[in-house]
């Protein structure tokens, strides 16, 4: 059974709103900048993909992630015709780092912050009257995990409509620890390039409204979710396992009833780290086999940074826009692909106009080996 995406919302370093974000990505616009909210002298790494909304450079305020989440959910709900009243609609939020940035500011600097707002239920209740809110803190696949759970609620008949969202902002602890473990500080995210140096974090939020498909009731849908897989490597706490990723990709295609040759576009997780990109490329190569040169492939973290728990859903929205428009944003900074990805048909340097794209795959993997893969389809026949 499929579900319709009837609304979408996005906020990222490259823009506000789905249209603006997608246009920016297709134009090759990057949200890369020098660190805005942290003391740059404390890190070897100096860059990130931040949303520039702090009151003054070098200062930081709590609650920014919550604000973006509310804006993304508001955009999606409005487009789906739900308005501002979500009192009867479950809202599932996937996030890697919740409002931990606000907790850092509260504890270290004494910035006022209600610890009851570490999760997003209170804010969603205040703005939308939403009560059935669930904050999942599932690292970098959290929003696709939330999508999978929402799809299950529709499939089992428990719900007709579910809002799914993802959000994250940089925390100083995560940014600093990534800085510590990178051998050489990255100055940008270069997914699948041989000279990639690691990941840079990005700010952002994404949201979709998912609705059970009723025969004949397909109106103004942005696309269709065919299936979402979720699993766990159960192998290593930070390093990805190609076998676990391959299982997730295979399961998603199997649940969706598609074969690798049916996939026209892959939005790769592509974080630009040594380990992720090698593991993901190996897994994709294994599952796709001889079909690996078939689909177009791209990775948007080169322009948005790693938006962590929100990244999977942001990629999904971009995939739906690409299926609808035939335009696929490029993977910037990809000069020479790593060996495992040599056969991939990457979109490079500039957006590609491609006529008939029908089915897309979206990857999202996170710390702890949590993998989720979605298969989506263009709306209409």
């Amino acid at each position, binding site marked *: 059974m499929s579900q319709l995406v009837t609304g979408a919302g996005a906020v990222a370093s490259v823009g506000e709103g789905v249209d603006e974000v997608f246009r920016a990505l297709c134009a090759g616009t990057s949200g890369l900048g020098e660190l805005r909210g942290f003391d740059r002298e*404390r890190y*070897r790494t100096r860059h990130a993909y931040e949303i520039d909304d702090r009151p003054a450079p070098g200062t930081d305020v709590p609650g920014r992630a919550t604000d973006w989440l509310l804006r993304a959910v508001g955009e999606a709900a409005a487009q789906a015709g739900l308005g501002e009243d979500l009192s009867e609609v479950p809202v599932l939020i996937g996030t*890697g780092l919740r409002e931990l940035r606000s*907790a850092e500011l509260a504890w270290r600097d004494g910035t006022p912050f209600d*610890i*009851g707002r*570490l999760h997003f239920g209170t804010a969603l209740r205040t703005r939308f009257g939403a009560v059935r809110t669930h904050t999942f*803190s599932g690292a970098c696949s959290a929003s696709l995990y939330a999508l999978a759970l929402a799809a299950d609620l529709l499939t*089992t008949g428990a719900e007709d409509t579910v809002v799914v969202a993802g959000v994250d902002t940089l925390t100083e602890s995560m940014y600093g620890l990534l800085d510590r473990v990178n051998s050489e500080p990255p100055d940008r995210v270069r997914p699948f390039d041989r000279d990639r140096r690691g990941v840079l974090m990005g700010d952002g939020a994404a949201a979709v409204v998912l609705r059970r498909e009723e025969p004949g009731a397909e109106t103004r849908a942005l696309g269709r979710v065919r299936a979402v897989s979720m699993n766990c490597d159960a192998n290593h706490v930070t390093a990805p396992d190609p076998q676990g990723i391959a299982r997730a990709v295979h399961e998603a295609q199997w649940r969706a009833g598609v074969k690798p040759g049916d996939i026209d576009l892959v939005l790769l997780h592509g974080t630009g780290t040594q380990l992720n990109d090698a593991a993901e490329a190996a897994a994709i190569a294994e599952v796709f086999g001889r079909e690996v040169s078939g689909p177009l492939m791209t990775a948007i973290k080169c322009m948005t940074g790693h938006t962590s728990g929100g990244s999977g859903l942001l990629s999904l929205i971009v995939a739906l826009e690409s299926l609808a428009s035939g335009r696929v944003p490029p993977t910037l900074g990809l000069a020479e692909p790593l060996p495992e990805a040599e056969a991939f048909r990457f979109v490079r340097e500039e957006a590609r106009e491609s006529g008939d794209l029908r089915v897309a795959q979206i990857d999202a993997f996170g710390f*702890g080996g949590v993998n989720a893969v979605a298969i989506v389809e263009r709306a209409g026949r």
Partner: protein
Amino acid sequence: MTHGPGEVVVTGVGLAVPGAGTPEALLRRTACPVTGPDPEPFDTAARIGRRGHRYKDRATRLALCAALDALRSADLIPADGEEVTVPGDTIGVVASSNLGNLDTACLTAAAIAERSAVDLSPMSLPNASSNVIASWVAIRHGLRGPNLMLCNGATSGLDAVHWAAALVTAGRVRRAVVIGVETRNAVVADLLGRSAGELLDGAAALVVEGARWAEARGARAVAALGPYERRAGLTGCVEALLPDGAAPGVWFTPERYAEGPAGAVPVPQAVPVPQAVPRYDVSGAVGRASGALGVLQCAAAVGWLARAGAGTGAGPEPGAGVGPEPGAGVGPEPGAGVGPEPGARVGPEPGAGLGTAFAAGPGAAPDPVPASRQALITCGDDSADAVAGLLLRPTPDRCPPHPARAALISMECSR
């Protein structure tokens, strides 16, 4: 978001809290708060050893202890091993914690401000991600099903039980380990504005399993999951679970419910459960439990069901439980508190109890278990963003054999 009766059952319970090693002991401790010195902190090394845990945070180690205990009690892990006896991809993990890695985040941010990121220990990296607890449980036991981490405020533990049941109902996995864990330290105490001594340092875990899968492997169920609701207030939540004012056999109240919101005088008409129903506040026994509370409550409720199951006749607590009792209830009676009549309800009672309630089997009466045999569990109060509630029921009598069930809607991934 409700599940039919008997569809999903509890087949294992694990605890890692000071002074209560079993559901029965946790219930006893809840009903009869111990005075005197606090018990020693839970010793994780005694259960899981020290080797390989040096860089795990306290919440993760507590979670590993409770999960191991639950998997063993569900007979999914032999007493002398750590490997599960069923395929790893048939088991999911759902962990709940609001405060678990706050210390890593805040102390790391402070260390950067004092010196620089270069001086950090790279071993802290996994702990900066809030899902580290669920990840380590999966890694330790090879659990390759969906791996969820709930950080959902006061209701988080009960929400986690719900999502574990949802994974089973949707056919994603046959069973899932649910862990609720919180710990206390200077960071948590400061951010909550409470003394560390008021806060839980412990974990509880459940194994929830599809009834058919439990039966297929001959596992004994200790409770069945009833409906779950998440509503705007306590009264609405309880009414949705127990229509027409039906009285449950026991009520596990939200954290510090008897104290009322923000120190207000309790308002009698706002109490959504009949005064005669015994009520227990697990957080009174183990400390303010935040995201662990719902799982702890379920563990204590399993203890209550076990005791009720040992009772006689139709009532869950003959002569002790249902009738009005002077001094019981939420009022501030000295010596009574939220656990009325300490000592009166706890302890085995003779006879056998759960006879014919399930004889009709699924598909007959929609709600075959009388409310008085069910445990009502609630998390969050009217000051929270929502209240979550769950009914736990005695397990169906499996004789005569359970009729065949329809295939699950979704395909199960079991390779």
